[in-house]
């Protein structure tokens, strides 16, 4: 009797391993979808050496999908200033700051317009806001203007992701 059971286990050993492996993958998937509204995007202002010509913004994004993806960096902080990326308000006057940088009309995305992100990979970038917005001494708030990010998987299937970031306050003395 015991030897028969052992035989059965031997016979089905590979199947068993496959079953365990498969169930752990599906469990991962289920966890990821439950986690969905987590903070994949973050925006912060570097408070050291903050001055009218030195306003350093950090932006980071974690791949929100459980697979290798690529992000079209158009209209995201990853391409630098080629469009008006932020809404910056002077809280003392209530006025929105004018974007001083370029706005570019483009044809088709080129290979260099994509950022590859492996599973769970976080990518970050910094921008000096004073290159494209004129600051004076005062209190400001900044937020991301366009938060729909265009991802593609390896089969070029498009995924739209809403990049939720909080509004960041900072003061220039």
């Amino acid at each position, binding site marked *: 009797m015991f030897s028969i059971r052992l035989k059965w286990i031997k016979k089905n050993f590979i199947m068993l391993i496959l079953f365990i492996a498969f169930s752990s993958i599906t469990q991962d998937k289920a966890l990821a979808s439950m986690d969905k509204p987590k903070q994949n995007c973050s925006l912060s202002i570097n408070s050291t050496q903050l001055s009218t010509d030195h306003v350093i913004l950090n932006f980071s994004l974690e791949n929100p999908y459980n697979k290798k993806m690529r992000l079209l960096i158009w209209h995201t902080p990853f391409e630098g200033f080629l469009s008006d990326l932020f809404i910056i308000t002077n809280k003392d006057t209530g006025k929105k700051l004018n*974007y001083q940088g370029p*706005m570019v*009309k483009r044809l088709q995305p080129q290979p260099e317009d994509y950022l590859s992100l492996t599973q769970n990979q976080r990518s970050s970038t910094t921008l000096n806001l004073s290159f494209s917005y004129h600051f004076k001494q005062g209190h400001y708030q900044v937020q991301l203007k366009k938060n729909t990010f265009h991802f593609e998987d390896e089969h070029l299937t498009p995924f739209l992701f809403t990049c939720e970031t909080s509004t960041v306050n900072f003061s220039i003395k």
Partner: protein
Amino acid sequence: MKHLIKIMIAITAIITLQANAAKPQLDVQVSVVKAENGNVNATLNITNNGNGQQKILGWYTDLNEEHIFSVKKDGVEVDFFGPHYKRQAPTDKDFIKLKSGQSLTKTFELSALYDMSSTGNYEVSYHVKSMHLYSNKGQQKKSERLAVEQLSSAISVIWLDGIEVKGTANKGKPGGGGGASDCIGGTCFTGRCDNSQKTEVISALAAADQITNSSVAYLSSHSANNTSARYNTWFGDATSTRYNTAVDHFDAINDAIDNQPITFDCSCKKSYFAYVYPTQPYKVYLCRAFWNANELGTDSRAGTIVHELSHFNAVAGTDDVVYGQSGAQSLATSAPDQALNNADSHEYFAENTPNQN
């Protein structure tokens, strides 16, 4: 006083003598040819007719490095828009060596660097002078070091028919026809636009004027409660506020084309169509996709000009909310207020391709 003059003459004579003594036997010829597209090509040929090897400073054989040609139109020197570099003294590697009998031949397009857009007789010659034209004189005596060496060619003459401004664009513009900057009928150019590019831009601007006039005409012959497919496709449902915004935007674009001093810059080599700085009217930077586009139709040169002008805060202050025709159509349906803030929506309304009433 007399003595002083004598001494001055003597010094001048010595300097001249030394310049002559140092002058190698280089023969320079320039020939100028007009291309079919209006560009002007100058071929420079420098030949060493002496017995030994001669050197010449490489900068003075390259129009991209130095102002080596004198261009006169009807006897008056034409402005040069090329670079002026401040350099350190040359080193030996900056000199080109020509063996006896050897020649150097290079061709340069002139109209991108000299204003050759108006009709007239142009005289082109090679003329350079430098203290280091033929050798690095760092080790020589002061008088020798300070002697200025010169090299010139005979004048080559060419007749050019100017670039004409057609249509009604530019009609009320200030500063047209002349002035120090490179302008044709109120439209100015920077960033080395050659004659062929200037001709194409003038034509595209006339086409932009035409599609803007058509847009203004549509908007004045319709109203918020009487729109048709053309308006609804690109701007969605009309309210009187939205409709008035569209009217204001196209009136402003029309005013920019007809009355404001627009400058086009040709220096961009990126794959983009074009770009502007919204706070810096009315300068439009044209890139590669612009030159590859058709004059009229979807994503055309005319439409690109409308798109770019709409970005200026002084015009309509539009943003790039979405790109492309399908994106703009969805935006019109889902967010008509955003469509009126989207540059491409304005472009596609003006291009009206395929045609809708």
